[in-house]
């Protein structure tokens, strides 16, 4: 298959054959506790100019597979078998020296974390120019010009100057652009991108994805794109490979996979995503259990323990990839995967019942929080970050308020203020009873030296509630509420998975029967399948216990799914506020519109139809906010008036509020 934009290579001998053929790749990690079979017989082809997405949950071997291609695995990883034919040459049989001619030259690589993937103590030029000189045999001057050209193409403003900057002088998005420029700078024929956008904000993510798409199309490079975000896949890929436990379980054209997934795992994965356009909310599907331990020998289908359609055959034999359509293969004995079982409707969520006498449990009025640095010299004005700059909100009993916004807009600060962890600069906060919190990072949320019992009981002990026996009963009750066995009480946090930890975090937050639970990105560190479990749990709890939630996330899809109301924040201010459905379906503020446009939808057909014009322009520094609308620098509709006059939050059509001069 040939793709638009693919460039004919001069390499005649390889013409016709795939650019890269991977055959039966095996990669092991030889750890002290045993051999981890991270990649367990993966085969696939990539043609020139083709973009293949590899999805799968954490630990399924995506990175290990990608790094195996160029033998970039760190000890104790080793490629133990298979062929990696690039243009007919087997990379797996090359010496390091030969491989170094391929790395960077024929295959470019982009890594996940832009913050750590560039050498912090070297200038961009020193990292970019020497590989160009080496691979393209240019002199220093020409190579530098070439590098500047690339920086320009990836959208780095003022590249002649910025090429001499250090990475720490750039934002995350900028650094990822530099990474892309670097990976493409020697005009490789294949680009491997390992979750290149995961660490970035939605709006930035959208920019980067578009950029990658355009640039690879332009240079004709093929691309392997690893992600666990199915929305991105729909937006980006030609073909999709689904990995599970070190194997490809399904492989095929992107539309086929989304429209007609054949493997139970793919099917479940797609069902865990909050639906966008259904009028009634239903519980998310969830994949029970854990992936298998890849240190243990495996017979049969690796997914069978978590598969509703599993039968005896699955335990004894391992299904191979078998054709399901043109170019579409799946590794399941059942032609339809879960089939009917999949279509069993998940439970509907009854809408929130509003009582007229529902109390307002949280009320925030004109809240400000400024962080003032310290200036040693008395005559210098200390730098001040206006993290929260006058916001007003209220939450009723049982209601969930979602807060969305880009990184640094002040979401976490609001949360901390609500919890009384930091003193406010000005403004009022009223919280009925106590507020409790669920944190983003499940691993740092718990004292590793305490058992779950002590962790969950801590709020009770500290506030002096109940006798020891009562506390024990309460802890057990809570554990059951969050779906954990009471025997877990004796465990330590390190003995739990990420999802289980978040359950414990929720149990702890509920221990003292708070009136509101603030959850700051409680799911963003979790895998899709686990994320669905936690979201379902929260939805259940809020209904059963009528606790109010504040749900903070940059994931608009999730926020709109779980929340009753949404507040969209931009640089310390709320720019739009209203019922979740309405805000999501009909955003008023240009920023909200951009945000929603940037969210990739897990539907290739819909994605293709969307107009993608990612935001451009720079985020102003929170240290030095402009006098007018803070969004003006990036707003497609901004006028001089916007730049001079600050819009305030105004009511529209009864339940909605937005802060924009030009809302119609």
């Amino acid at each position, binding site marked *: 298959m040939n793709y638009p934009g693919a460039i004919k290579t001069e390499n005649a001998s390889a013409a016709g054959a795939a650019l890269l053929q991977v055959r039966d790749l095996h990669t092991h990690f*030889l750890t002290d506790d045993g051999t981890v079979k991270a990649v367990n017989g993966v085969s696939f082809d990539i043609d020139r100019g083709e973009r293949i997405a590899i999805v799968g949950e954490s630990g399924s071997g995506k990175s290990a597979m990608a790094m195996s291609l*160029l033998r*970039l695995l*760190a*000890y*104790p990883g080793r490629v133990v078998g298979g062929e990696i034919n690039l243009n007919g040459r087997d990379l797996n049989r090359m010496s*390091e*020296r030969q491989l*170094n*001619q*391929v*790395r*960077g*030259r024929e295959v*470019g*690589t982009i*890594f996940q*974390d832009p913050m*750590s*993937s*560039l*050498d*912090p*103590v*070297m200038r961009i030029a020193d*990292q970019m120019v020497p*590989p160009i000189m*080496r*691979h393209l045999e240019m002199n220093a001057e020409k190579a530098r010009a070439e590098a500047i050209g690339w920086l320009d193409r990836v959208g780095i403003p003022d590249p002649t100057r910025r090429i001499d900057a*250090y990475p*720490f002088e750039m934002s995350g998005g900028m650094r990822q652009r530099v*990474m892309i420029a*670097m*990976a493409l700078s*020697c005009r490789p024929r294949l680009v491997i991108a390992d979750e290149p956008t995961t660490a970035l904000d939605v709006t930035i993510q959208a920019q980067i994805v578009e950029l990658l798409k355009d640039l690879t199309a332009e240079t004709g490079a093929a691309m392997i794109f690893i992600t666990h975000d199915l929305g991105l896949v729909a937006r980006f890929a030609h073909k999709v490979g689904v990995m599970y436990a070190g194997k490809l379980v399904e492989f095929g054209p992107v539309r086929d996979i989304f429209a007609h997934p054949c493997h139970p795992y793919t099917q479940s994965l797609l069902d865990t995503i909050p639906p966008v356009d259904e009028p009634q909310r239903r519980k998310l599907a969830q994949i029970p259990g854990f992936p298998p331990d890849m240190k243990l020998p495996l017979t049969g289908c690796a997914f069978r323990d978590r598969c509703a359609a599993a039968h005896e055959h699955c335990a004894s034999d391992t299904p191979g990839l078998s054709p399901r359509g043109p170019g579409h293969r799946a590794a399941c004995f059942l032609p339809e995967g879960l089939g009917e079982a999949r279509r069993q409707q998940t439970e509907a969520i009854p809408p929130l019942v509003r009582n007229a006498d529902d109390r307002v449990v949280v009320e925030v009025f004109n809240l400000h929080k400024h962080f003032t640095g310290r200036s*040693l*010299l008395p005559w210098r004005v200390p730098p001040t970050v206006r993290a929260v700059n006058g916001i007003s909100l209220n939450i009723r009993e049982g209601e969930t308020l979602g807060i969305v916004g880009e990184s640094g807009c002040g979401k976490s600060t609001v949360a901390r203020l609500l919890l009384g962890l930091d003193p406010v600069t000005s403004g009022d906060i009223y919280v009925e009873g106590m507020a409790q919190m669920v944190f983003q990072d499940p691993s740092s949320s718990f004292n590793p030296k305490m058992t779950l019992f002590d962790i969950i009981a801590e709020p009770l002990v500290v506030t002096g509630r109940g006798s020891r026996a009562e506390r024990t009963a309460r802890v057990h009750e809570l554990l059951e509420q969050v779906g954990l066995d009471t025997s877990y009480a004796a465990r330590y946090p390190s003995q739990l998975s990420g999802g289980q930890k978040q359950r414990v975090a929720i149990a702890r937050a509920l221990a003292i029967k708070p009136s509101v639970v603030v959850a700051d990105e409680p799911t963003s560190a979790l895998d899709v399948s686990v994320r669905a479990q936690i979201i379902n749990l929260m939805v259940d709890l809020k209904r059963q216990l009528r606790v109010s939630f504040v749900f903070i996330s940059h994931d608009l899809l999730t926020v709109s799914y779980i929340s009753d109301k949404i507040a969209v924040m931009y640089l310390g201010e709320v720019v739009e506020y209203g019922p979740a459905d309405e805000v999501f379906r009909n955003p008023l503020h240009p920023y909200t519109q951009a945000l929603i446009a940037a969210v990739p939808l897990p539907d290739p057909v819909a994605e293709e139809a969307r107009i993608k014009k990612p935001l451009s322009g720079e985020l102003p520094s929170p240290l030095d906010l402009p006098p007018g609308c803070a969004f003006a620098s990036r707003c497609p509709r901004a006028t001089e008036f916007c730049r001079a006059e600050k819009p305030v939050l105004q009511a529209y059509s009864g339940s909605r509020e937005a802060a924009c001069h030009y809302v119609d």
Partner: protein
Amino acid sequence: MLTYSLKRLAQLSFTVLGVVTLVFFTMRMIPGDPISAMAGDNLSGAALDQVRNQMGLNEPLLLQYLHYLGGLAVLDFGNTVTTKLPIIQLILDALPVTVSIAIGTIALTVLIAIPLGTLAAYTAHKGHKMLDNAITGLAMVLDLMPSFWTSLVCLLIFSLALGWFPASGTVTIDDPVQLLRRIALPVLVLSMAQIATMARITRTSVLEVLNEDYVRTARSMGWSELRVLFRHALKNAALPIVTVIGLSFGNLLNGTVIVEFIFTLPGIGSLLVGGINSRDYQMVQTLILFYALIFVIINFATDLVYRVFDPRVQI
């Protein structure tokens, strides 16, 4: 930078004043005084008291302290209490010896320890534990031999048996060859302990850097491992190494007492021990003031070097 310097200056004054005060009163709380120190077996108490009176050692303590601070304020460090030699001169004479030993030691240490540590880190990174363990083990053994023991062994081997280096003889910077021959063994002995520490630090920090993402980035651009090791890893691992160099330089300037004693080197360490043993208050105070200054200055210099190695460090 200005703010930083001001801050440093404030810190410097505070530390130095604290150290000076501490040493002043510590010295005087220790029993024995310069006069009792110089008394041998055949001097009586009455005879000594006469001398003591004449030297003003019977003045009230606070007055002596104020005198001392007054002298410091005009940079007058005074003379030794009993032998009436100008202290600053003694220190300036001893300094080149100690500094050459310190520099020699650091140089030898860096020359051996950094490649060794890097090699150990590299082998550990590649999973070849044998060489790594051998290097770590060797470093540990070297580290654990008491210097008074290694000194003597070195003397017996290199000086007596092989005759490569003299065991005695004057040391001046005017005669560099002689100087080198005289400080070679002390440098060797002192390096042994330093090499261990520095190799360990190098190993740890290089190993850490080798696991960083940017090292993988560099390799993905086709650079060989060796180049990655020396271009990226070492530079990034430099900060902890620089800290250790700074610290050991400071320690070498005051920690060479035993070695100076055994190798008969007229360095700062000898002055300090001599000063303490003869209760030469003025000498000890000045030397310690001097140490405190060096300590603060080395801290400062380390920070400056940080800046060179890591552009993220802002001062």
